[in-house]
């Protein structure tokens, strides 16, 4: 499979879950495991172009397909506007649900660049956050939508905020 544009080949047990393959075999620990039953969405990654709950996808089912995780959300060292939005609007606290939330939010904005608060809530309704009460997550996604709209109308881009140095490794 291809994960974040890198090809991987591995022999795995047929029962191995995609989330465990990503975390334990590839060391991509940004996606989290939270519930086992597809209820919480901490494990959301993209399979080809669609967000999936990787705790209920077998690694073998991703054979020959493209997987995108939070580690592949940015572009060439630049953060995605969704990532900026979550930091700007305090859209996270403990950070555990955040990668899954951001992957779904990115998908939403790719398909609906100007979502209402209600549409954002509906898009994220299959994912659980225990810290934020969702309000600031909604604001974060709106922030990203507005940033991208401004970029599309070729308004001069705002200065990128400094969220601290990119940590090597």
């Amino acid at each position: 499979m291809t994960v974040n544009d890198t090809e991987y080949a591995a022999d795995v047990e047929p029962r191995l879950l995609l989330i465990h393959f990503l975390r334990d075999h590839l060391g991509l620990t940004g996606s989290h495991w939270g519930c086992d039953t597809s209820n919480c969405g901490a494990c959301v990654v993209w399979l080809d172009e669609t967000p999936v709950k990787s705790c209920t996808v077998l690694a073998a089912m991703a054979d020959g397909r493209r997987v995108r995780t939070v580690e592949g959300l940015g572009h060439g060292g630049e953060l995605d506007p969704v990532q900026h939005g979550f930091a700007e609007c305090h859209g996270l606290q403990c950070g555990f649900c955040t990668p899954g939330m951001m992957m779904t939010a990115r998908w939403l904005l790719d398909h609906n660049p100007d979502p209402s608060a209600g549409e954002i809530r509906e898009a994220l309704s299959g994912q659980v956050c225990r810290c934020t009460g969702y309000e600031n997550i909604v604001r974060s996604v709106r922030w990203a939508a507005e940033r991208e709209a401004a970029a599309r109308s070729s308004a001069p881009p705002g200065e990128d905020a400094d969220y601290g140095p990119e940590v090597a490794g």
Partner: protein
Amino acid sequence: MTAASPPGPNGAYGPRRRKEDARFIRGRGNYVDDVALPGMLHGAVLRSPLAHARITAIDTLAAEAHPRVRTVITGQMLAERGLAWMPTLSRDVQAVLATDKVRFQGQEVAFVVADDRYAARDALELIDVSYEPLPPVVDARRALDPDAPVIRDDIAGQAGNRVFDWEAGDRAATDRVFAAAEVTVAQDMLYPRVHPAPLETCGTVAAMDPVSGKLTVWSTSQAPHAHRTMYALVTGLPEHKIRIVSPDIGGGFGNKVPIYPGYICAVVGSITTGRPVKWMEDRSENLMSTSFARDYHMRGEIAATTDGRILGLRVRVLADHGAFNGAAQPTRFPAGFFGVFTGSYALEAAHCEVTGVYTNKAPGGVAYSCSFRVTEAVYLVERMVDVLARELGIDPAELRMKNLLRPAQFPYRSATGWEYDSGDYPRALRLALDMAGYPALRREQAAERERYERRQRAGPPGQEPGLAAGAPDTLTGIGISFFTEAVGAGPRAQMDILGLAMTDGADLRVHPTGKAVLGISVQTQGQGHETTFAQIVAAELGISPDDVEVVHGDTDRTPFGLGTYGSRSTPVSGAAAAVVARKVRERARIVAAAMLEAAPADLEWADGRWRVRGDPDKGKNIAEIAMAAHSGLELPDGVEGHLDAATVYNPPNLTYPFGAYICVVDVDPGTGKVSVRRFIAVDDCGVRINPMIVEGQVHGGLADGLGMALMQVVAFDAEGNCLGGSFMDYLLPTSMECPSWELGATVTPSPHHPIGAKGVGESATVGSPAAVVNAVVDALAPFGVRHADMPLTPAAVWRAIQGRPLRTDLAIT
């Protein structure tokens, strides 16, 4: 509406993006399950399928023969090391692995260590345990029946299932008030068993270095230092050879305060195999076996005059503590801080009695952002005030306004002996009522009720002329809750956990270039300590928060303290941070005096500098002073170089945040479905260091309260089977159920906290459930409903309307 909090010295307070987000938005957090060590093995726990049974045999041979299994640990093996039982935080004992009986479904029976997590799970299937089933005690209200099976036959002299009896207040004075009162009303209510359910479950990686004898434990711990001492006391390992690392924590909410059997098993597994052992719960293990919260069966009685002056409150509680008394609270407070149940009102007398009982359910009781049971206390009093309002026919807002403590009454000593530090309660309630547009809401509700009743008289919807066809048949409910929190445990003379006083240390090092490193004993689980605590130090030293690194969650790198729970980080550890920064500043004064060739007494601290009084141009900032403090500058005799300092903060009192909440719901009486239309929350937590973070804390707590009020419950069937063992059964609020929260703020500083802050982490969880329930009950007033127990699921609401209330904690109707 944002807080009117002052910007703090040096302008360091205020909304500020969080330092910790840089790693989280990149997927670079470091949670316990992200820890991978060379040669690491994986553990799994075999759990009891039965709620109450005698173990007659355990056969582990087949599991041990599994090619990828390294060891299998049973209670018998632990007993040989003296580790089969461990102390709980309430001076009870809890089985690490069961040796005699199992006492709740999900109890730990054996532990497998294998090469990978899948093999460990496979091997659990190969262990054969023979059980002799015993009748379980499921209903707390039957636990004290004379014929109830005795759960804790391991305790010498334990005849029944009583854990403790505890009381507070003045019984005789309360009885006198009730005997003379014009009006008294009683109401039974249940605060059901819920679970904190952080998104990250509990787990650990234990690594015993066989050469150095040092044990390192990466753990989901809200209290790493207390855990270190507990490990030393339980295992007999020397405490200086134990290091607890609590890295990023995926939410705690009280779930990660205790030490769980799996942690001890992982430590033993590492000692046995000589390799690191990781153990992470799955979601069902988390919900079924780790600290639950609440489970308080309460009867409240309230006494008042006919014109609505509240005189007294009398409360009787049956507290379900599960199979072991593992409640995590100050040890001398068996019912936590339930004694603050007189709430925000000036009463003449109050009394409560709490009886704790054992049942065949998971241990716990104090968890889930409850401020040591202030949650239950606030729910009790705020429901009782609404019950009284209904009885007297007085508007609940008016009844509260009439009885709230007045600003001039602070500091206020309550009828049960708590000294509230500061408050302006009427101001907060007025603000909330204004934000809600309360009179208009009531008018709208009255008109709607009239339409509803006309429609009911007219028959099927849409038939009566003048009513819009297809108009929704929902009823508006408006609920108010006014809460007083009690946080920041606590003064060392009164509060300890197993003998460890509830104080917190802080140390502050200032490097020669003026950059600072603050070591704290509390542990963030999302509260943003790395940012807020840097702001506290920055304010005191006149430097930028960017120049303060906050170190936490590693016992080898931080000073001792009791950790983060009960909203105690800012009231206790935040105070320690301010005090240690002031110590550094005083040391800097002496160095600055030497630099400026002035007497220290002639210097004043202003604009982030020590400067000569009367000569403001002559001064030195912390960076200049720090470099000089590390140089060869001549200092007065007896003055050491450098600026570093340490402190231990012993809070003189608790702090008492408060707030006024208003919830507006729409209830469909046909289906029982409740929708929260609006939620207005005015919080006063004293000085706000970072209002953005404060508001985030409130948002999260409101969602929690909504979840408890409407959907969350860990119920049991007659056999003691847990019915809330997954997120398919234990329902959590999503973005669809939560409204867009409307926040307001007032600021009444705490007079005894160094920077006037009070703590806010649990305020919304404490205050909001009563507002939601009051709103739903208000909506159901046309049906004569005076009370309904949480969670107010459609089934529970519908049954309340039918006059056949549901017992929400049991699958026995």
